[in-house]
């Protein structure tokens, strides 16, 4: 196909765009904004105890917190995919009474402070909670302050990112491809698996990455609902907070690890994430 770019159009009057004056008026606030965003990272790197970095990284507390964080964030993302993709599908593709309200409620965890989410989780699933009490009375199982509670807290905070992202992708996908699949004899399940899912794949991936990063960084709801027990519920952000009060150098190391993990994910998925499907 031969595209007609802007350069092949009729010549514009006046000077070409490339020779226009640089917009200095915008440059100053833009540079300030950029500096503000990277300054904290420079501070972090400047204070990193590079000489003792190796030994500190191998300390069992760091290793435990890192493994717990990676593990819970991954389990959270898997559950969010299983529950969130169908939810997104229903929101994007079906008409049911109160759909608008359901969508609004799904976005609530995005806007409330995570600490409030933690309190709400305790009131619902705690030993004296609305659901938690009967659960405890019947089975003797108490959810709060367990590793499972870490996942629940992360799921509450992070799943909406996945749902919103996948719903957007489903709305953007051309439904006529699904009709074409139906005329070829594909059942609804086959259409979803072989046509819809590949089409919305980039959106699902973006949603999963957002969900995973949000779960990895979760602090407020986790400390409220799961507490801060090393090895069991102490994830990286909680460990950073605790370390900051005892040995700031330890907090710096932990922060650096979190930064590296997040950057690795961002860089690794950049093309697929930022690019349009």
């Amino acid at each position, binding site marked *: 196909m031969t595209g007609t770019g802007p350069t092949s159009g009729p010549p514009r009057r006046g000077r070409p765009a490339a020779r226009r004056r640089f917009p200095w008026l915008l440059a100053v606030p833009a540079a300030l904004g950029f500096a503000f965003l990277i300054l904290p990272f420079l501070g972090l790197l400047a204070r990193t105890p590079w000489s003792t970095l190796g030994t500190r990284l191998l300390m069992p507390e760091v290793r435990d917190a890192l493994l717990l964080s990676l593990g819970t964030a991954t389990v959270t993302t898997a559950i969010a995919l299983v529950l969130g993709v169908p939810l997104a599908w229903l929101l994007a593709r079906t008409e049911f009474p109160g759909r608008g309200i359901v969508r609004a409620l799904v976005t609530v965890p995005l806007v409330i402070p995570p600490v409030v989410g933690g309190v709400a989780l305790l009131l619902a699933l705690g030993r004296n909670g609305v659901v938690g009490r009967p659960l405890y009375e019947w089975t003797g199982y108490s959810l709060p302050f367990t590793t499972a509670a870490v996942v629940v807290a992360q799921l509450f905070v992070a799943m909406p990112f996945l749902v919103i992202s996948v719903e957007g992708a489903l709305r953007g996908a051309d439904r006529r*491809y699904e009709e074409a699949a*139906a*005329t*070829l*004899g*594909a*059942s609804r399940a086959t259409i979803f698996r072989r046509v819809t899912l*590949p089409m919305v*794949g980039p959106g699902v991936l973006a949603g999963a990455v957002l969900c995973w990063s949000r779960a990895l960084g979760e602090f407020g709801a986790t400390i409220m609902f799961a507490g801060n027990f090393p090895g069991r519920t102490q994830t990286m952000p909680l460990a950073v907070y605790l370390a900051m009060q005892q040995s700031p150098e330890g907090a710096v190391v932990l922060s650096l690890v979190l930064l590296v993990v997040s950057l690795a994910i961002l860089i690794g998925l950049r093309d697929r994430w930022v690019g349009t499907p």
Partner: protein
Amino acid sequence: MRPDAALSARLVVERAGFRLDAGLEADPGEVVALLGPNGAGKSTALRALAGLVPLSSGHVTVEGTDLTTTPTEHRPIGMVFQDYLLFGHMSALDNVAFGPRCQGVGRARARALAADLLDRFGLSDQARLRPRELSGGQAQRVALARALAARPRLLLLDEPLAALDAHTRVAVRSRLRGDLADFDGATVLVTHDPLDAMVLADRVTVIENGAVVQQGRPADIARRPRTAYVARLVGLNLYRGVASGTRVEVRVADGGPVEVTIAERRYGDVFVAFAPRAVALYRERPGGSPRNAWPARIDGVERFGDQVRVHLDGDLPLSADVTPAALAELGLGVGDRIWAGVKAMEIAAYQA
């Protein structure tokens, strides 16, 4: 309803401000073209046949099996969409294998079937390519192969040539004609291009405003249009009037009746039609052989192939095709008053 019909359908689809009510029949191997202006309901009719649009009432029967309430995925149909809708994440081969796979054919066998079909379509070199790497004509043929791979009993084509440029269209049209000839089920083809309908179809059904206005063999449609839309498509001047013998009183929207003389006797309501090239132009009222002569004013002139089409306004608005030389010889221009003459022999008159 004929019991041996490959397709027999009455499609009624009601929507706010629109109602489609069309009957369709096709014999085995027959290609029926649905021809009509944009928004006439042709695509809705095709989607209703596929089960993608629910019928308000009516029925769809394919080879004696009632499919009226059968969901799309269980209908023995194959459909080629206007922009093909090939699955972008699959190779051409997997696109074609998709239908057989959905019918429970194993992966290897489905791929072998698809490879075979692509081979027959002359597309084996393109089997590994993604749809975006195919040319327009190749994509169209892959879409057709994909539709045929599921062994449909009813083939539905929605504007199959509309997405192609004029140059490719000629070649793809003639290949499509050959492919359709090999298919033994019924084919319904939607188009707004009369040439597609004339070349590809055995029968043409013209739809306007959701209703069938004319049906017949392409040649009959071309020779005897029954609506202004069809007349414009096939390039004829068409009028409606009342005949008594060789005289027809034609009613034109504004103004009194105009008398048209025809060669054979007719009685009652008739259509009269003649080709623009049957019209001769004169500066003075002609005498002698042309038995019809109407005063007119030149409303517009445009180039039309190697002819010049002259639009005439007057008691009987009409189009005339003359050679550029003839126009120059007469020294005519827009706004000039002239006479238009047509021999009675050149005028077709048929029952309305």
